[in-house]
């Protein structure tokens, strides 16, 4: 089998040559798990056996301080690991004595070096954890300390302790030779198997090492250490890969065990499902034995577990992988922790790679109306000034105002009539309607900033876009049109900005207006919210795709109040209603539990010419 693999490798090399990759560094791996072998977070005590009195040719360095220099060089680059050391003027490294030693000897534990061997590092590992490492310099060579080129005349016949020690201690920490990796890498690195004029760790060496032990400075805590600081994941083409570290992360009070293991170094991400669908989540390409948990809820002490996994194949493939069914509009929290084998050093740590793939099953879309533009898990509110044409976001933290973001000043004949992800980049776009010319366009957004424009169509102004949502479950937002003269309503089933087909819905009195769309019943279909502009009645049409299924939610609210927006404002997975009093300027939520109102928190009083747009 090995021969076959090598043959394939060689064939690939023959055909394509060698392609340096961004991360050319190589790890020493556990043959069973495939994971890098590394020290647990903390300190690595080193015993230096070397003369500390005889100066080398630079006049200040001794053999011992040259080794110490190498230890300090790595220390300055590591996030959750540090060498400590003692200097002993005499002594020789011994094998598997539970001490990490660096020394000079004429043999490797009593055996000959053989020809041409300058120095050797041997290390011991149990599973993925390094438990001992020793480095022996061959006393058959003349050792000195110099930074210059190897070809400098004054360096002829001498070996540089510092650069060799940096290389060997790189092995101690877990890096292997990139030029001997599979496939071999072509990169400038002190970890290459040959010594060169490179005498310090290069960018490639540092990247590889920091993947194992986190970025410097030592002790730095990741930004997403706490649940409250979970980093938002944004999809591109229904997938996302994010990276981070759990080095120096901690477990919070009340935090659950993830996948049934105590862990102890957890970090958090969050993601809001754009519609109902299936999610696969894994930690492939992380450098340690991970734990993975998926939760809903708003506080770390009261989370609901949706799914969790420790190992893909227990003890063998130690990455984590899981699947779950997502409900559109629900914010899911992902915890990644390190496995704690309870032998003492705590949870594993290092680079995390978190991969998410989403397959929409349609429905549940909550991107109509004020939605989550900045993708922080909270639906935002978009305002329009009917006098000046200014548009501005309220970036919400659920029911609280977080910040304000100005969008643009656009002529008042233009109105925003809905929003949805039309280009499939995972970001909410805006649909505009020119009430004078009948043009309809899309602003493709990058969060709260305009990215580019798209044109939909010119449609007579008697028609208005009343709602934007995915009704036919194809993952693309569709348009619901309303004729203000005839009362006809019809769907445009869309593929991005392109119309695919039209489906007639109904002819309903013009007293009634569609004011929003969302999945109120939780059946995966997008429902329509109606408002009678004469009587003040409100109703929900429970839909089955593009067909009326039943009626729900009868309420009569005095007419100065209008439903201005529909979205899941409180993040409970149920769409809510945002009301606007056109007389007083008051705004208030109706927090819904399905088709029933559960509470009515007040938002703000904004009088005058500002209005919330759907």
């Amino acid at each position, binding site marked *: 089998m090995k021969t076959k693999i090598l043959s394939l490798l060689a064939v690939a090399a023959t055909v394509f040559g060698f392609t340096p990759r961004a991360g050319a560094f190589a790890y020493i791996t556990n043959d069973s798990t495939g994971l890098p072998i590394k020290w647990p977070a903390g300190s690595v005590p080193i015993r230096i056996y070397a003369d500390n009195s005889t100066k080398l040719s630079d006049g200040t360095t001794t053999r011992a301080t040259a080794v110490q220099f190498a230890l300090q060089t790595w220390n300055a680059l590591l996030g959750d690991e540090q060498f400590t050391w003692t200097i002993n003027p005499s002594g020789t490294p011994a094998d*598997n004595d539970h001490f990490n030693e660096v020394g000079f000897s004429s043999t490797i534990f009593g055996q000959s070096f053989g020809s041409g061997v300058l120095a050797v590092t041997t290390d011991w590992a149990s599973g993925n954890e390094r438990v001992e490492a020793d480095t022996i310099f061959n006393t058959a060579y003349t050792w000195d300390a110099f930074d210059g080129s190897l070809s400098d005349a004054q360096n002829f016949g001498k070996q540089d302790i510092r650069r060799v020690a940096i290389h060997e201690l790189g092995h101690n920490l877990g890096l292997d030779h990139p*030029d001997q990796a599979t496939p071999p890498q*072509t990169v400038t690195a002190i970890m290459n198997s040959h010594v060169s004029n490179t005498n310090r760790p290069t960018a490639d060496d540092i990247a590889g090492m920091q993947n194992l032990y986190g970025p410097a400075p030592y002790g730095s805590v990741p930004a997403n250490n706490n649940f409250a600081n979970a980093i938002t994941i944004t999809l591109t083409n229904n997938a996302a890969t994010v990276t981070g570290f759990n080095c120096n992360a901690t477990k919070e009070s009340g935090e659950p065990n993830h996948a049934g293991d105590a862990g102890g170094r957890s970090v958090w991400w969050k993601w809001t499902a754009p519609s109902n669908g299936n999610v696969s989540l894994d930690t492939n390409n992380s450098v340690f034995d991970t734990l993975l948990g998926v939760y809903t809820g708003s506080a770390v002490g009261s989370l609901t577990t949706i799914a969790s996994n420790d190992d893909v194949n227990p003890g063998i493939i130690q990455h984590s992988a899981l699947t779950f069914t997502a409900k559109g509009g629900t914010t899911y929290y992902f915890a990644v922790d390190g496995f704690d084998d309870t032998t003492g050093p705590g949870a594993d740590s290092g680079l995390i790679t978190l991969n998410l793939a989403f397959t929409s099953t349609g429905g549940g879309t909550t991107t109509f109306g004020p939605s989550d533009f900045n993708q922080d898990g909270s639906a935002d509110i978009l305002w329009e000034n009917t006098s000046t044409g200014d548009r501005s976001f309220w970036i919400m933290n659920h029911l609280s105002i977080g910040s304000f973001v100005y969008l643009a000043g656009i002529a008042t004949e233009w109105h925003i009539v809905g929003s949805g992800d039309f280009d499939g980049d995972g970001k909410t776009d805006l649909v505009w309607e020119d009430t004078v010319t009948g043009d309809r366009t899309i602003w493709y957004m990058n969060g709260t900033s305009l990215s580019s424009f798209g044109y939909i169509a010119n449609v007579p102004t008697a028609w208005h876009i009343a709602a934007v949502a995915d009704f036919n479950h194809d993952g693309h937002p569709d348009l619901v049109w309303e004729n203000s003269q005839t009362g006809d309503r019809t769907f445009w089933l869309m593929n991005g900005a392109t119309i695919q087909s039209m489906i007639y819905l109904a002819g309903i009195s013009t007293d009634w207006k569609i004011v929003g769309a969302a999945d109120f019943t939780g059946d995966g279909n997008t429902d329509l919210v109606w408002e009678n502009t004469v009587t003040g009645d409100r109703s929900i049409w429970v839909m089955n795709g593009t067909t009326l299924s039943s009626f729900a939610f009868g309420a009569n609210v005095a007419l100065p109040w209008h439903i201005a927006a529909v979205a899941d404002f409180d993040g409970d997975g149920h769409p809510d209603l945002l009301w606007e009093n056109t007389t007083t300027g008051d705004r208030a939520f109706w927090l819904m539990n399905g088709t029933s109102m559960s509470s009515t928190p007040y938002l703000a009083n904004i009088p005058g010419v500002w209005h919330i747009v759907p």
Partner: protein
Amino acid sequence: MKHSLASSLASLIRIAAVIGLAAAALTSRATSVIPPTFPDLVKQSDYVIRGVVKSVSAEMVNDATGRHIVTSVEIDVRQVIAGTPPAHVVLTMLGGTVGALTQTVHGAPKFSVGDDDILFVAGNGKNFSPLVALMHGRYPILSDSTGRQFVARNNGVPLYSENDVSLPIGTPSPVKAEQANAQPLSPAAFIGKIQSAYNQSHRPTLEN
């Protein structure tokens, strides 16, 4: 003594070649290992064989210098290329895996059953690694997409010239750089070079 222009030029070329080799040796020493020249690789070997790995086993060994894992690699010798190997070749080397414990010797080749290699063996049982200059003493035999066998370096990169053995393991072959259509050495060609070098290094002199 007469010196022709041609012989002077040849001498200059030889001197230049020697200087070139010396410069290469100065600028490309391995951290763990100094890559040997091809003649040295052959000369420093007790014997050179082509063989297939029959078995790999590891055991824990205790001695005065501590506790070690020692791996034994049993070789089915397919061809004796140079020197006189024992009837039963078992290479012993420091490092390996016993149960959950693994001892790694960085830079030392790892063997798997079925590996087909040309091996330059020296100090088997006495050196911590029985191969000349660690990874520089092992040359896997691989096959390309047509089934043609070729010789590779320990990292799987094709060997285009016997002189490339003195290059750091990750250095591209100058032969390949100069001749895009250059072919890797076949096992037969490399073995021929080895035997020629061995005969050179063991040629009787007048003093003998």
